């Protein structure tokens, strides 16, 4: 089933390097990514559950993960295009406990 006027994922701001998938997707699927009326495509390289994030371009280790046009954390390893972006490859940049 396709969602949101034919889009499979939504990029909330043109500055974002991740999009939120509007349905569960499988690795290898081509996703239509909607952003303010425009649509682009990205190929999912992982299975991604409903509402989780997909990378729209490469993000280097330590690089900002951007959603809502704002930094939501940092990559803890290099992330290539089309990957599932979540707690396994990114982390919060706030309230960091220094050991």
């Amino acid at each position, binding site marked *: 089933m396709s*969602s*949101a*006027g034919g*889009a499979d994922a*939504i990029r*909330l701001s043109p500055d974002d390097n991740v999009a*939120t998938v*509007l349905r569960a997707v499988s690795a290898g699927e081509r996703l239509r990514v909607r952003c303010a009326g425009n649509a682009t495509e990205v190929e999912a390289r992982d299975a991604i*559950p*409903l*509402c*989780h*994030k997909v990378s729209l371009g490469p993000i280097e280790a330590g690089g900002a*993960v951007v*959603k*809502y046009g*704002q*930094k*939501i*954390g940092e990559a803890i390893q290099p992330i290539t295009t089309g990957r599932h*972006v*979540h*707690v396994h490859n*990114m*982390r*919060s*940049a*706030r*309230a*960091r*406990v220094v050991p």
Partner: protein
Amino acid sequence: MARDDDSSGFLGYRRADGQVGVRNHLLVLSTGGLTGQTARRIGAMLAGAVVVVLPHSAGLIGRDRDVHRRAIAGLATHPNVGAVLLVGDNPVVMEQARTDIEPSRRPFAGFTLDDCGHDALTLTDRAVRAGARLMREISGLRRTPAPVAALGIGLECGRSDPSSGLVANPLLGLVADWLVDAGGRAVIGETLEWLGAEHLLAGRARSPEVADAIRGAVLERERIAIAAGLDLTGSNPGPTNIAAGLSSIEEKSLGNIAKSGHRPIEGLLGYGEKPPAPGLWTMDASAYAPKSLTGFVVAGAQMLLFTTGVGNPYVSALAPTIKLSANPATCAAFRDQLDFDASGAFLGHDSLDATGEALWRRVLAVASGEATWGEILREGDEVLSRFGPAL
């Protein structure tokens, strides 16, 4: 079923102090845990009474003692309370409550164990008789037309997922904007869930002092988390949020603050503090829904709007709480627990604006008396925050 679709106002209960209630409750309020079960026994004998038990009393000091007094006064004179029956174990607390309630001219009766020979059954007997008279007195009150400007609404989210930040919380933002434009009061809390988005809230502050207060409140929560050695990832966002796709507190916060809409922020309220003027307000409070909602209620909010991603049953006892979700699976699973289904906007079938307007009509219908699922299923409770050590 007849429904008031007039978007310019609602039908409410006008109180002697000028407030307008959306419900006409008899509140049975225990000022401490010692008389909690007595209060529940009394409430069970009075049809439709709402029972609230504040678990702590003697030994509270400092801020907790102030909040306890503020809570008794705020709950007893809440606009949705037609009359209040107070029970407790402490004559000093009861005398303070009397002093705080009297200016509102809200009908009330109060009994302590000391008044009743320390006999809980005597207390029950006397309180039930007084409560029955209060109930009959307020049953004669009728709803009359009231403007939207008389409404105060608390905005909450719980067990969020990314659909909360994409759709459900922005819907609350629309309602908040319309409420503020009409002269009402909107309040957001959950300070920890501004972390990572505090610059956006501070940017909308009415004055530099308010911006500083908002940033300061967030930094204080961050300091507490660091001092506790707590990694927020795993606690906030919690395991449920993470499973649903939220990866960091920043991501959760950016979705959370969408509830606040777009209007200027008038100020930062303390826990349970009443907004001194109309408009949009922030409240420095716990992100745990039961404590957050009671903070709004003590501050006088007559209604609450509460979004959820994966499902959350909690509602206030005194303020009708409209539960909503935009997650299609959640809406399908909780048809008789969620009051508003926003999944059409998530799926792209409905526009955000049209869905917001439908939610606004539901808000006014509930304000005029339509029951929420939480009221029908008796989910309601009130849980007061604690802050420091006690004696």
